[in-house]
Each structure stands twice: as C-alpha cells, then as structure tokens.
C-alpha cells in the first residue's frame, strides 16, 4: 500500500447498496435457483430454459456505462463477490452459468479496448439473458493457469487459434467466448470468439458435478479470427484476469459451503440416535464448529482480496492464497456435509451429495467467474 493511499479503516460492514442487493439476490437464490438445482442435476429440468429467468437480476447491466445502455454503476469486485456468493447459496452450478456473461462483461470492462466495449457491451443491456463466457482451463492433469497451451498465430488478416479449452461454462450456447491463448509463442493474449467459426467444435461434457453450468469442451482447429478479436489495445494481463476469476470461484465456494452449513445445522439437531440429537456428540458438533470456523475464514480471505482489487492495490498474492484456502476447505466442508448426514448424505434425496460433487470443482476451475 502506498503512502498516498487514503486511510481506510478495517471494516466488515456492507454498504447500503450491497445490503439491498444481497436481499434480492438471496431471495432469487432461495425461490428460483434452489428449486431448479435438483431438477437440473437429475436431468429432469433444463438449465438452458432456466437462464433467461436470471435476466431479471440485471447482472450484466449494472457496470456498463450509461452511454452504452447500462446503469453506469462502478464495477465492484466486492459487490460482485457478494452476488456470486448469494447465488451459489442457491446452487453453485446454476450460479456459475448465470454469472458467466457477467464475467465476460467484467473482463471486457477491465481489459477491453474502447471499440470492443462499444461493440459488445450494448448486447448485454437488452434485458434478455445473453450467453457469453470465458475460457482458460485446458484438459491436462498438470495444467497451470499461467501457461496455457492453446496458441494464437498472427496471420495477414488476424489470428489463427488452435487448442482445446475444458470446463467452459455455457460452453455449448455462448455466442461470445473469451479464449486465452499464447500469442506467437510469447505472452498470452485473449481473443473474443463470436458465434461458431469454422474449426470450432463444442462438445458437451459429462462431469462429476456442475451439471447445470453446461460445461463444454471447446476445440479450436486453425480457427481464423479477425484482427480486432484480440482483447484490449495493449498487453493482456493474464495474471490479473486469473486472479479476478479466482475471487469469483472463491465466492462460489463460500456460498455453497454456507448452504452446506445451513443445511446440516437443523439436520444434526433433529436427527436422534442413541436417545439424543446426534449434535450432542462432540464428534458431530466439533465437525460443525470447524465447518463454521473455516467457512468464516474462507469468506474473509475472499473479501480481503476483492477489497484490495477494488481499491486498485496489488491483490495477486491474496487472491492466490484465497483460492488455495477456499479450495482446501471447500473440499473438506463438502465431504463433512455428507458424513454428517451418514447414509442419508449418500442419497440424492438430500442436496449435500450434489454440493459435495460441485465443490470438488473449486480447486480445478480457473479463468471463469471473473469479478
């Protein structure tokens, strides 16, 4: 922090806007998302049909300048993290799909050129849900977000894109996909892929969880992109993009883990064994206590990094550590949620097994859910 930084106090108080916004997000999450989640996870409901209903939240509208049709509210990584958290409390899978266009918009606002903003942002101010997404992750066991293998090569007319991206939310439907690739063997750059150009193949994925997010593998075989497809006018800041996405992923983890905690609390208090509620046993009660402790820490880690990002400070290390911490503890909270319900936790009648499957993805996901 530089000496010219204004003297902010340590503060965990939400702004009035954030409080109001949370209320509406939480209402939507409880009423709309939670109800859909199970149906979609079981293949009985359509995520594709669901997403248009999220348009009422105005997720993409807020931070877009008024001149381009938006509400012109300053983009706030903290507020966005709160939104992600609240939606994920309903369901992480549907939340991820719902916020993917917002992540695309956020990245455009953050690193797009003036021309790109003018071209694309008005499309997200129509009041309709527009499928868009970001794609960094690749299908390799040792994939590192700082070193994608997808390549872009300069051509006379623009770029040739080659490579494979995995676990892309809304990957089947997205009309706009921001793809990260190594440019001419050097630094990374981001490319806006519109529609489905020749050489681009979209394959629906079957995964352990996140079934509602419509994850897809996108393959690019010598896909030709125009010169203006490259994001921004200067160098692409990959680390910043990855870190902003890490914050979004952490926020999704926080919301989901809060859902687990909220679910197991009444369960262990009501479930009777050996003549008493099972929560009267230390092994059960302490597991719940640790869940609460680690969840609180996950939230503080996420908020801290998001606040640094919002203040324009260096937030790389805190975002990195938040992701490490959230991944580790989200895994444990997901597992403990099932364990606390015992045999019932293993059955799909209760949502904890779905949350368990969804939370496995926290460590793996990269380059999506940018705040």
């Amino acid at each position, binding site marked *: 922090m530089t000496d010219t930084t204004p003297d902010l106090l340590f503060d965990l108080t939400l702004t009035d806007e954030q409080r109001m916004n949370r209320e509406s997000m939480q209402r939507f999450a409880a009423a709309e998302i939670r109800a859909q989640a199970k149906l979609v996870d*079981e293949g009985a409901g359509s995520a594709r049909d669901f997403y248009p209903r999220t348009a009422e939240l105005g997720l993409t509208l807020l931070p877009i300048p008024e001149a381009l049709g938006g509400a012109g509210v300053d983009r706030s990584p903290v507020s966005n993290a709160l939104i992600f958290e609240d939606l994920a409390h309903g369901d992480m899978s549907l939340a991820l799909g719902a916020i993917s266009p917002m992540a695309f918009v956020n990245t455009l606002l953050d690193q797009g050129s003036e021309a790109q903003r003018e071209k694309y942002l008005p499309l997200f101010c129509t009041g309709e849900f527009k499928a868009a997404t970001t794609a960094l*992750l*690749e*299908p*390799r*066991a*040792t*994939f590192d977000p700082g070193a994608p293998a997808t390549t872009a090569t300069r051509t006379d007319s623009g770029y040739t894109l080659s490579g494979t991206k*995995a*676990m892309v939310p809304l990957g089947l439907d997205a009309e706009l996909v921001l793809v990260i690739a190594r440019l001419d063997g050097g630094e990374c750059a981001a490319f806006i892929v519109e529609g489905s150009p020749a050489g681009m193949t979209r394959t629906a*994925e*079957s*995964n*352990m*969880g996140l079934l509602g997010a419509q994850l897809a593998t996108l393959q690019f075989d010598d896909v030709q992109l125009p010169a203006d497809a490259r994001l921004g006018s200067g160098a692409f800041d990959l680390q910043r993009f990855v870190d902003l996405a890490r914050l979004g992923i952490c926020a999704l983890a926080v919301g989901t883990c809060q859902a687990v905690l909220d679910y197991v609390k009444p369960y262990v208090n009501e*479930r*009777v*064994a*050996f*003549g008493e509620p*099972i929560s009267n*046993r230390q*092994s*059960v009660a302490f597991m719940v206590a640790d869940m609460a402790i680690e969840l609180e820490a996950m939230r503080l880690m996420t908020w801290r990094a998001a606040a640094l990002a919002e203040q324009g400070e260096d937030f790389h290390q805190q975002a990195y550590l938040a992701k490490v911490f959230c*991944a580790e503890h989200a*895994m444990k909270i997901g*597992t403990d949620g*099932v*364990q606390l319900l*015992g*045999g*019932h*936790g*293993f*059955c*799909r*009648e209760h949502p904890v*097994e779905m949350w*368990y*499957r969804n939370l*496995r*993805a926290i*460590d*793996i996901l990269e380059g999506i859910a940018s705040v």
Partner: protein
Amino acid sequence: MINLELAKKHRETFEQVMMLAEHMMRPYSRKYDKEEHTYPKEMEEVAKLIGSARSNPGGTREAVPEGTVVNGGNMGSVVGLFGLCWGDTGLFLGMPGSGLGNAAISAVGTPEQKKKFGSSYAAMCITEPGTGSDSANISTTAVLDGDEWVLNGEKIFVTDGERSDTLVVWATLDKSLGKAAIKSFIVEKGTPGCEVTRLEHKLGIRASDTASISFNDCRIPKDNILGSAEVATDAEGRKKAFGGVMQTFDNTRPPVAAMAIGVSRAALDLCQELLQAEGVALTYDKKPCNLSAIEAELCQMEAEWNAARLLVLKAAWMADNKTPNSMEASMCKAKAGRVGNHITLRCVALCQSLGYSETYLLEKFARDSKILDIFEGTQQIQQLIVARRVLEKSSADLK
C-alpha cells in the same frame, strides 16, 4: 515368524481376481454407473467365477495342529475384495452373492441354514428410518405365532435389497427388553408381506440397488431365526446376546475396509497413469520434501494406502487364527474408510479436469468410496468402538 507378504495362494487369488476385474468388470463400470438401478447381468459370470471361493466363506480350513498359523478364508476374502473393488465397488456390491447377509449367515447360521441359504443372494436389513448408527434402537418386530415368526416394520438402506433372493432382517422380540431382544431372521424374497417400497438415487455405487423394504405381517418359518430365540434376562446375558448380533459386524467390517483399499488403489493407479503421461512419476529416489508437490502427495498417499491395507490384513489374519478382532476390525474400517475417501478425492483434484470428467473413472471412484466410510458403521462409530476398547470404557461412559 513376522512376515507381512501374502502367502502364495493369496497372491494367486489376487492376480486372478485382478484379471476378472480388469476384463470383466471395468468395461461395464461407466455403463451401470449411468444406468442406475439396472441389474448388471454381466456380473453373474464374474460371480460364478469367484463363487467357488465364496460358497465356503470360511475358507478351506484344513485341520491344522494347535499353534499353527493359518492364512485362510478371511484373508482370502479381503484379498479378493482388494481386486474386485479395484475393478468396481458398485458392480461388486451389485452382483449376486456379495450381500452382507451372506456373511451373517455364514458367521452365525446353523449348518441347516448355511446349507439352505448359504449360496443364495442375501441382503442385510438393519437400518430403519429412525435409526442410523443406533442399531440397538430398531422397531421392527418379530412375534412368534405358532410355527411362524410374524415380522412388521420398515427397513431402509438395504444394499441389493431389490435384486437379492434372501434378506437377513434385524427385529426385536420385545422392544421393552432392549438390545437383548434383537434377533436376526432370514426372509425369502417373495414371502407375502415383504415388499420393496423404494430405491434410492445415490452419490455412488449406483450399480447396486439400495432399497427400502416394508414388512407387513410377513410370516416366515420358525426355523428362520439366526441364533437362539431366547431373550436373556440378566445383564450379562443381554450384553452377550446383542454382542452376538453385533459380532456380525466384526466379520463385515474388514471386508468393507478391503473394498476401500481396492477402490483407492484403482484411483491411485489411474491417477499415476494420467500423470505419467505428463512426465510426472513417483520414483522414491529422493526424500519426499525434495520432490515436486504432486510426487510428494502421491508418496504420502502410497504410504497411507499401504498402512491401511496392512491393518485390514491384520484383522483378517486374526479372524483366520481365531483371535478376537473386534477392535482391529474397527481400526481397519476407520483407517481404510478415511484413507479411501482421501485418496480417491485427491486423485480427482490432482488430475484436475481429467479427474472431474466422466471420461475417466476417477470421479466415479471418489463417489463410490464415500459410502465405505459410512455403511457398516461410520468413521465416528469405528472411532467410538476403538476408543472404548483402548480406554476400557462401557458404552454408558463413552457415548
């Protein structure tokens, strides 16, 4: 003389089972994971091939001189399960004859009962909607009416409840008499009053069905009770009687632990195969702290896996040698249960999107393994049992 390698016959058993697992189970792993509740008919062949070993679950027990060490049926059973659940835990649990009821019949059944039901496909009905780990608190009743027992009650979490031929049902002769009045009964499927009411959709082991079964005035022959029909009246007798029923757990816990060993080995093998393709391999040539993070984690998982496996073998060896192994059975179940969970989950994480994808089986191994830390007594129940033994505590003192 101290030796912790398998005897030759068990090494051979393991190799043969691994062949079956690889060629006759794995090709169907994903299919029956996706088609939940579908009976994996291809497994009948596997069941037949391993059937000769199972038809005598006590193992071939040649007459051995006093003091001679035995490596018998219990060790053979866990070694077989290492392989079968390396193949597929769900398919194994969903195949004829794998029911835990078989273990109960072979452990406490009369010679007649073993003959009549020993080779049937027997599922175990213990849990009820209101009971989880609290097996002593069941409400299903059995009342003797002439030459028949009349059963009434509702059971849940019956593994293979739908596709089995036979059920071993825990019921109380008189709930007011507590644990001592709990007995187990053999019910043949198709008996009027016995009905499968529901099948669970589950996180894992989807190839096996998990059923709810109701008993409404279900009448079975008087001889179908396992063990004595008498209800002990003194404290000692009551304890012993319930202990007898609970004892079946001593026989079923090492096998469930063995399943965890099998599925976590499967995960470790596949994980290492996928990582090897990226040039990452565990070579044991440096101290773990000097390895890469992935190698060090693989190394730590190998250590935990080996440790858990030895605890399982010890518990089985004790059973083979007629040494009481109630504590060791719970020890190996606790350790293998948590290690199995940990390894399968970390293998998903280590392989990142490949681990999370249904393209490979890593995510399935993780889902399948979770139940092994829950059924036949959760992690916490095993810790409780071990703690009581180690600290010499009654269940009243340490709840």
